């Protein structure tokens, strides 16, 4: 299996903040990989390092076979970058933006124009192509942005939250384009906060939280890992959180996720009978609960369960 992207042990600090604490990533050539995580998890930092915009403090990166730290120029020749942080010229028209990039990639003028026209057609922007970008809607902007990163026919494409803030129709349109690019052999790494997006597009998902990879696998695997259903408990007294967490761990064999703000414990279960067992155990331990429920899993539960801090950590921090 050839890898389009291979990152090992990426570490990046900004002053005293550790943005990445050892991220490993592997993207097989020709596949779509989703990088999932809450805001501030380190998704954008990861993409910026892979796309040679940032140097990591430690770790190794290979993109399309090139060492991104030693040969950034070679990497830049085979990648495309779109997202939060790569943009287009507001004052120039869509066509001019695409031609400019073609010229920077040293295409002859005629070829640059032909490629621009081709991309405008592909992204349904032929009419808008002669207007300045500042007149574009959000969806059109994302499309021209994506088109800009495709001028050089990249082998590896980075999409950093490509559909954040888009309406559902524009989102579906963009997904369609990404799928067809992958079908033609482009390797795609996309970051997203939307589970649905990762679920729809990605063959494999890497979940990052606080600069670390917390899970990796095919979407179905991740969902199975989280279990068929979720058990939620909110102790009346927040001081009971560690005890309730311990009981849940004993019952399910897995540490529950804890949301400290709401004081809610969430854990995956496959056996609905556990609910009555839990009620009994909590009662024995005289732990009162405001909320106690067995819920069918939503995609968000997968996310919450994977990215929320394990209850053990909360236990350590709570005075005994």
């Amino acid at each position, binding site marked *: 299996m050839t890898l389009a992207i291979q990152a090992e042990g990426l570490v990046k600090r900004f002053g005293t903040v550790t943005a990445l604490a050892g991220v490993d990533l592997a993207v097989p050539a020709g596949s779509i990989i989703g990088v999932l995580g809450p805001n501030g998890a380190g998704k954008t930092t990861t993409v910026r390092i892979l*796309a*040679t*915009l*940032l*140097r990591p403090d430690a770790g190794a990166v290979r993109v399309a076979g090139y060492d991104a730290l030693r*040969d950034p*120029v*070679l990497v*830049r*020749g085979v*990648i*495309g*970058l779109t997202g*939060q*942080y*790569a*943009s*287009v*010229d*507001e*004052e*120039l028209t869509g066509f*001019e933006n695409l031609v*400019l*990039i073609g*010229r*920077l*990639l*040293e295409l002859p003028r005629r070829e640059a124009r032909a490629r621009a026209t081709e991309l405008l057609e592909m992204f349904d922007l032929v009419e808008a192509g002669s207007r*300045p970008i500042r007149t574009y809607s959000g969806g059109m902007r994302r499309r021209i942005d994506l088109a*800009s*990163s495709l001028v*050089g026919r990249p082998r590896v494409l980075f999409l950093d939250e490509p559909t954040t803030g888009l309406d559902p129709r524009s989102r579906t349109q963009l997904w369609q384009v990404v799928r067809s690019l992958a079908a033609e052999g482009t390797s795609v790494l996309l970051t997203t906060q939307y589970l649905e997006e990762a679920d729809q597009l990605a063959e494999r998902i890497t979940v990052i939280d606080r600069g670390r990879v917390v899970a990796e696998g095919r979407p179905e695997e991740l969902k199975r890992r989280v279990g068929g259903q979720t058990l939620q408990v909110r102790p009346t007294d927040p001081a009971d959180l560690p005890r309730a967490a311990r009981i849940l761990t004993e019952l399910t064999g897995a540490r529950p996720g804890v949301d400290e703000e709401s004081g809610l414990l969430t854990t995956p279960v496959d056996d609905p009978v556990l609910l009555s067992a839990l009620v009994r155990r909590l009662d024995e331990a005289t732990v009162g609960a405001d909320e106690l429920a067995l819920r069918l899993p939503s995609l968000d539960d997968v996310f919450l369960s994977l990215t929320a801090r394990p209850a053990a950590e909360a236990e350590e921090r709570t005075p005994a």
Partner: protein
Amino acid sequence: MTAAATAAGSAAPRRIGVVRAVRHGLTLAGRNIRFVVRSPSTLVDTVIQPVLFLVVFVFLFGGAIAGDWHDYLQQLTPGLMVQITLYASVGTGLALNTDITRGVFDRFRSLPIARSAPLVGAVLGDVVRYAIAVGVLLALAFLLGFRIRTDPLSALLAVALVILFGLTLCWLSVLVGMVARTPQAVPGITLAVILPLTFGSNIFAAPETMPQWLGAWVAVNPVTHFVDTTRGLLLGGPTTGPLLASLVSVAVLHAVLLPLAIRAYLRRSR
């Protein structure tokens, strides 16, 4: 990072040579020139400022300062050429900072182009802006009755010198543009330097009429030497001394500002 080695068996070069770097820089200069023409606010800045300064100073203060606005126009126009160019140089840092803030810079950096290209493009593109501003100023001055008393060659040399000065001060603008967090902060900081340089000079009034301390500042101000040179080249009079002083100040300013600006640029573009 010195060898321009090409990886064996790989078609693409690992480093970008000078010729390609120049080509990338020129492509981006073309983009920036298009920007000047396209973006109404930049064009207005470039065109309106010279017109405003000329009209206000000639008609409002000309009579009071020189007794007759016709005479004042002759003295002021060469000085305003210098001032206008300095003001226009504020735009260099502003444009670079805007590119960074909007993410356009990241787009360029993700392409296999020379790291210097966005900077070279911004600076070269701005030379065109300086030329437009000086052109507008001279055209209006001619309409009002300004006349060159020397020859066209001297006049061309004057314009070239003024643009050279703009290019020198644009490094200050680049430095500020790289350090400032938002584009909005750039003009304020840059103008705080440019205002004392332009108003504390012999552009608007003769240094003999000023208090001694101000006269002393005016005498060492590089703007004064440039204005003297420009006046000499356009109206006649001594040019060798002021020209020498101008070139020395350009060299000194470059020696100080260029390394600082490049360092700030590289830090921000890493």
